[in-house]
């Protein structure tokens, strides 16, 4: 039976951590059973390179040292791999325990537990059940978008990417070349901010509208990353939450609670209708149409015309 990969990785890690002098590939191959069983030199070499990458992925700093004979040796030095001293009290430990559970994406959930386990090994206090300590709160960070993981890695490593993107109202996707800066989750959806090379401008993309695979481009960034990347303001603008004007509508008494909650002024007209002033931003026409015959737009004329236009489209079926 093939030797489990975790066993092989664990042995390589222990060898590299346990040595004071660099170990050559030959020495490592003789010390680790899975490498002896690897067969050809080629397959051993491939396996060894992959394993080193995997160990680096989980945080191990592996130094490559050449000796006087020109032979390359490897070791994981104590001072570059040791967690600096960290002391957390029981409350702080419980708070981190809660935070470590919020990811619903396999890679980050694994990484968060891994972080907590390293802290446990370093003496993080136990015994407090995070849910007990934090009452009934169960925050979760959803990640449903397939593009998330490759983009997260690209943001981390500052690698340009290419993907097909379908704009909200476009029939067909278009290829976009992007230098990815940051990912942000707002209202349960993930957005990417970055430099759009085709447009020569900063752009925000919604991950659920990326179709197909995210491919990496080997080249580096051509534009420097700004200190502050604001995804939310752009998205709030799309969502119509940035309003620079106001609208006047009539609303049937008792109906349209969310419109009332947003209104800056409500006047009862006494004939079964109320008059409301509400902020007028992008998308208000579509929202007002949802209320059907319970809403009549009075001003401005442009909004009134948009709403009538939409209603006609529905009435025609």
């Amino acid at each position: 039976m093939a030797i489990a990969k975790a066993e092989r990785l664990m042995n390589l890690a222990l060898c590299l951590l346990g040595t004071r002098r660099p170990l050559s590939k030959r020495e490592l191959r003789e010390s680790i059973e899975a490498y002896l069983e690897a067969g050809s030199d080629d397959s051993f070499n491939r396996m060894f390179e992959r394993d080193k990458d995997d160990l680096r992925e989980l945080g191990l700093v592996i130094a490559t040292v050449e000796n006087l004979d020109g032979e390359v040796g490897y070791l994981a030095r104590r001072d570059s791999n040791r967690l600096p001293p960290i002391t957390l009290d029981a409350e702080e430990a419980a708070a981190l325990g809660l935070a470590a559970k919020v990811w619903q994406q396999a890679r980050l959930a694994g990484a968060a537990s891994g972080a907590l386990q390293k802290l446990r090994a370093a003496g993080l206090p136990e015994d407090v059940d995070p849910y007990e300590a934090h009452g009934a709160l169960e925050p979760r960070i959803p990640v449903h978008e397939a593009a998330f993981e490759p983009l997260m890695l690209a943001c981390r490593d500052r690698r340009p990417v290419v993907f097909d993107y379908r704009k909200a109202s476009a029939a067909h996707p278009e290829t976009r070349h992007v230098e990815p800066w940051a990912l942000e989750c707002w209202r349960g959806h993930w957005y990417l901010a970055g430099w759009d090379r085709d447009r020569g401008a900063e752009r925000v993309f919604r991950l659920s509208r990326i179709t197909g695979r995210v491919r990496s481009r080997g080249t580096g960034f051509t534009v420097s990353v700004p200190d502050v990347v604001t995804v939310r303001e752009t998205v709030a603008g799309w969502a119509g939450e940035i309003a620079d004007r106001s609208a006047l509508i009539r609303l049937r008494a008792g109906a349209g609670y969310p419109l009332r909650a947003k209104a800056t002024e409500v006047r009862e007209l006494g004939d079964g209708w109320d008059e409301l002033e509400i902020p007028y931003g992008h998308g208000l026409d579509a929202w007002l149409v949802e209320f059907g015959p319970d809403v009549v737009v009075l001003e401005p004329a442009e909004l009134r015309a948009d709403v009538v236009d939409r209603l006609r489209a529905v009435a025609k079926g």
Partner: protein
Amino acid sequence: MAGKPVRPVNAIDQTRRMLSLVTYLRERPGARIADVARAFGITEDELVSDLDLLPMCGTSFRGGDLLDIDTDGERIWWHNAAALGEEAAEPLRLAADEATALLVAARAVSTLPGLREGDRQALLRATAKVETAAGEAAGASSRLSVTFESEGGVFADVDRAIAERRRLWIRYYSPARDEVTEREIDPIRLVSVGHTYVEAWCRRSEARRTFRLDRVAEIRILDEPSAPPEIELRDLSEALVQPAAEDPEVVIEVGPGGRWVAEYYPHDSADELPDGGLRITLRTPDPASLRRLALRLGRDGRIVSPPELADSARRAAGEALAAYDTAAGAVRRGDDGQE
């Protein structure tokens, strides 16, 4: 009792866990399986599979210095803890992904408006300490951020009611009917998935219901004790609204401008149409609640079935248009020959 969902074995996760386990066990001879599994946030089965693997690991499989770790099923014993040099047994620094995962989550949780102040302070202190300990590895965590949405005041009242096991009175807005109804609920837990929800036993419908906090128009904590029946908690991570197989089917065709429907409504299928649109099939216990959607879509989509739903949207639009004909400030007539 239902166990945790079985996670696929991931060699990287397991390796990182075993490295921490080795450090941890070295300090705690005779540690109990149950305690260690809890400390590491894994099942006892997962821990046992690690313990099966560890005796195959060491600095050389020949030299007899493999880790001599075994368990009697209750406690864990390590007979040659010295086999591993001091170097290999120290806690390891955090990887970039580990620091990112923990720090981004901690920052997100600390912004939850309803978090108790003491907990928030503890979390902020812990975050600062982890940032320092992570050093350079913490850098990439600024490239990821998460904001939870929740209504601060409502959240605090629900949280308190759950802690004190008291019933709540709420006025709740239901978009499906465009109405605000009063109900008494026995809150069970708060869930944040993008928006924040309270899962509760609704006394009016005598059923489990999920309420979105930003739709709570008014809230009061009652003196009566909360007494929700014992119900099994569902995994709400996938979708809060889980349509049942027997729910009526609705078919909607949208043009390119209505593709967002597939992003917002859980559906059974979404088939591409030649014009760049979609034919979406979904199920809902209450098709009438989709009249809002039909109105919103306008020329970007239409209800294919059930026909009653399509009719009701057409009728509603017609009624609404009539109001414009009679409202002050006459509306331009349509150019389709109608009066």
